[in-house]
């Protein structure tokens, strides 16, 4: 043990009140250093202890070397939004260490390699200096793994100092390595050595402890992108085309990882996944597939959406179902590829030239990413239109705690598709005719035949140029107006048929909060704090565009409404103003757009400030 016999300067053992399951860790490392595995082991371990957890990965657009911060929040009250303050800093990146230490609150904890010989610059925090290199050296690790595995040292130290039982860590490690015993054992050796070293050499001088609870039973940990992938597979997606782009890539990776649940009896795939040459081709492929009668999707982010614009207009006007996931990041332009935003709302709703207005689904949790995964494919077929699902980097790439996903509560809805000769014969027997764009049911949704229906009257010509309700080319103004009016009616009819807003309304309360998407958890947490401070709020979360009538009712039944969004321009508020002729001066846009996931702290402070004015 002589190699490890480095005695850091220690504070006396902590005597005050403990802080249990209500604090956050920030782990600062370099990108590409392998710390993600360590961080996942920590979050999984806490989850297995039954403690509600959440994690936010703040990473650079870089493969290796730039700083990355991973925050893990434990919350006995089940709050899972991002927290501004992290009490414990695991400071493993010299490039950012000075600032990282500065950012710790008084009473915080700094875990730092003693190898750096940095000393202790702050009096008001506790330092645990740990011999990273020596601990790794003590474990018999092949040299090529040493750098990466050194991240396990802080796992062992955290386990010891904050009371995470080692058997739980060991199991979490094995799961993180997908059951591969050998690498798990090698990593665990380092964790164990670090744990033992801390036990023998550190004196607990901070109040922070983890304690087992039972609040994660029946829950899962998953990213929104993986949830969306699973939802799509349960929704019968059969053609996927995509072009890699952060932060959407892991959605299609999820489909590739899980598509084995969709093998046929002989083990062949029932899902085609094509990596396209660009986003134009990706959306072209899913439009071709949707036209032919497959269930198709692509996944992209802002720059890809911009490229898809022309094709989406075609699919809208020619009425072709397909699903486009937008995992939003900061724009405009290349923007910040690894920072979250809700800045694509307006561009999705109105994408493409001319008069277009699209259906946009807005999941607010990983469970809704799963649900909208299958439902979006139904909605696209039902309305014969491209359907966007707007998630974001925070929802898509971070790990979230969730209830287990509910199995789809309705069978696949293929919409008004005449899929074979009999169906077309029956239709013609009933109506005396069939034309592609004729509104037979007075619901603005026409019937389509699928290519390959063996019937000489099945064919029609699909075009983005002007057409009549018979599908024939037309440059007549009245044909144009009639056609576009029906499509407009169709999209308007969808308002009350899409996923409806979820609201918590008490008529006695005068303040309303309106929002969408991944802001949800921060808002719920903020409302609790606001209530405790005497500010009572109602809350409605929008789940789809075009807006349901209930959104307008919500706006006009409150004295004050705050529209909370994580974009710069307050885009949801703009859409509401666009749609109403009523006075909206009582509606205030609270748009953040600061590149980070929303926090309750910001919401509380903004609303408190405005209410006190």
């Amino acid at each position: 043990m002589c190699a490890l016999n480095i005695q850091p300067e220690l504070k006396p053992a902590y005597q005050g009140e403990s802080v249990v399951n209500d604090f956050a860790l920030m782990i600062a490392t370099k990108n590409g250093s392998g710390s993600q595995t360590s961080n996942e082991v920590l979050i999984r371990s806490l989850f297995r202890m039954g403690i509600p957890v959440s994690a936010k990965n703040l990473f650079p657009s870089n493969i290796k070397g730039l700083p990355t911060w991973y925050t893990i929040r434990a919350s006995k009250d089940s709050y899972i939004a991002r927290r501004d303050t992290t009490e414990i800093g695991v400071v493993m990146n010299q490039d950012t260490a000075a600032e990282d230490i500065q950012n710790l609150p008084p009473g915080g904890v700094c875990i730092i390699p003693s190898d750096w010989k940095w000393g202790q610059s702050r009096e008001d925090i506790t330092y645990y200096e740990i011999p990273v290199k020596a601990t790794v050296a003590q474990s018999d690790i092949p040299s090529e793994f040493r750098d990466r595995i050194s991240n396990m040292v802080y796992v062992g130290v955290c386990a010891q100092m904050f009371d995470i039982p080692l058997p739980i860590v060991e199991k979490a490690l094995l799961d993180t390595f997908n059951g591969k015993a050998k690498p798990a054992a090698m990593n665990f050796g380092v964790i164990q050595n670090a744990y033992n070293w801390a036990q023998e050499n550190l004196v607990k001088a901070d109040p922070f402890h983890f304690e087992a609870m039972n609040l994660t039973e029946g829950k899962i940990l998953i990213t929104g992108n993986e949830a969306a992938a699973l939802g799509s597979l349960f929704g019968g997606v059969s053609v996927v085309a995509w072009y890699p782009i952060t932060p959407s890539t892991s959605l299609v990776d999820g489909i590739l990882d899980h598509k084995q649940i969709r093998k046929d009896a002989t083990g062949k795939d029932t899902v085609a996944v094509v990596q396209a040459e660009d986003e134009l081709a990706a959306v072209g492929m899913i439009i071709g597939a949707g036209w032919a009668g497959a269930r198709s999707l692509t996944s992209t982010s802002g720059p890809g959406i911009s490229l898809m614009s022309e094709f989406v207009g075609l699919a809208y006007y020619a009425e072709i179902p397909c699903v486009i996931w937008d995992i939003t990041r900061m724009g405009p332009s290349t923007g910040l590829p690894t920072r979250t935003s809700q800045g694509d709302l307006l561009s999705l709703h109105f994408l493409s030239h001319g008069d277009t207005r699209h259906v946009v689904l807005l999941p607010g949790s990983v469970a809704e990413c799963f649900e909208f995964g299958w439902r979006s494919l139904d909605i696209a077929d039902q309305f014969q239109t491209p359907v966007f699902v707007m998630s974001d980097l925070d929802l898509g790439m971070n790990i979230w705690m969730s209830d287990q996903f509910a199995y789809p509560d309705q069978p696949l809805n293929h919409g008004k598709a005449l899929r074979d000769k009999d169906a077309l014969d029956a239709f013609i027997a009933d109506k005396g005719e069939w034309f592609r764009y004729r509104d037979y049911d007075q619901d603005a949704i026409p019937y389509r035949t699928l290519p390959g229906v063996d019937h000489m009257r099945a064919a029609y010509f699909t075009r983005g140029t002007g057409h009549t309700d018979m599908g024939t080319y037309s440059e007549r103004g009245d044909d144009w107006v009639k056609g576009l009016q029906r499509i407009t009616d169709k999209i308007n009819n969808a308002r009350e048929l899409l996923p409806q807003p979820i609201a918590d309304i008490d008529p006695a309360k005068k303040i309303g909060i309106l929002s969408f998407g991944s802001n949800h958890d921060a808002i719920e947490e903020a409302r609790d704090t606001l209530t405790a401070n005497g500010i009572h709020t109602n809350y409605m979360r929008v789940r789809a565009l075009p807006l349901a009538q209930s959104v307008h009712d919500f706006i006009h039944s409150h004295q004050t409404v705050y529209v909370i969004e994580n974009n710069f321009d307050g885009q949801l508020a703009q859409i509401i103003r666009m749609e109403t002729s009523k006075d909206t001066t009582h509606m205030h846009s609270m748009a953040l757009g600061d590149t980070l996931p929303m926090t309750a702290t910001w919401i509380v402070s903004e609303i408190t400030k405005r209410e006190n004015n």
Partner: protein
Amino acid sequence: MPNAIGLERTDYKGATSTLCPGCGHDSISNQIISATYDLNLNMTQVIKFSGIGCSSKTPAYFLRGSHGFNAVHGRMPSVATGATLANHDLTAIGVSGDGDTGSIGLGQYKHLIRRNVPMVYIIENNGVYGLTKGQFSATAEEGAKLKYYGVNDLPAIDLCLEAIVGGCTFVARSFSGDAKQVQTLIKAAIAHRGTAVLDIISPCVTFNNAPDATKSYDYGKEHEIPLHSIEFMPKGYVPAKEEITVESGYAGAIDVTMHDGSSIRLKAIDNDHDPRSREKAIMLLEKAQRENLFLTGLIYYEEPHPTLGETLELTPTALTKLDDSLLRPSASVLADVMKAFA
């Protein structure tokens, strides 16, 4: 006279063309009609694609019984890729132009070929943008003259060469004024499994038909050099016995058996081009470009590679025909998946 499935040739027609009278594209549409009629194709099992431009209007003018899709400019390949993946039971025929394929769509063209999407890809190549009133396209030869735009200073892109370099297994060039050759090549292309490219020089009678223009009727009639006389023999056709003896090559005939059992027979005219050699095909096109030769016929052919759907190891059932039970795994599968995240 009805064909083997009881259809008249006129049944294979589409709407009346709105192209300029005499347009080369209309004669290609006619050959598509004749070829599919001769092959007894069930039109309901054919899908037609196009991009944007004069050429891309034509799928409305043939095969009225087939679903058609007039996509966006230059991006027809991706739409066809998605549709043929979705339903591989259908025969896909795409029509594009030189602007559509050679400029805005060059990327998608190359990637379609790279993936070996099973389809007939016809380029109606006139070297000029017609609907926007006569700009040069990327296939216009260096030195070409146009009324408003003067002289083209840039070298032409050879779409057959691009196809061969890109890995295409069936590459042909033809001339819309050579009806018999166009029709025969279309039949062979339909029989081919994989991407079959037909670059057909198709004069624009309005903007690029001056007698000295290399993509004009007069020039084509005068300068076309067919590589072979070409004959398409449908599956089950038994040729005369003496014709079967094919020597190694060049002076005699070359028989190429297609995937579906049909074959094409190429008889050399006054050259020794063997389309089964990629190297020779590339050299031939280089020579044609250098010496300004208008060579037509089957330039390159090789045994088909796996198509995109085969590469992806998809289920043999067309994806559009999958039963819902294959599209949605059971609740117990979801329960198992959930365990992995608990």
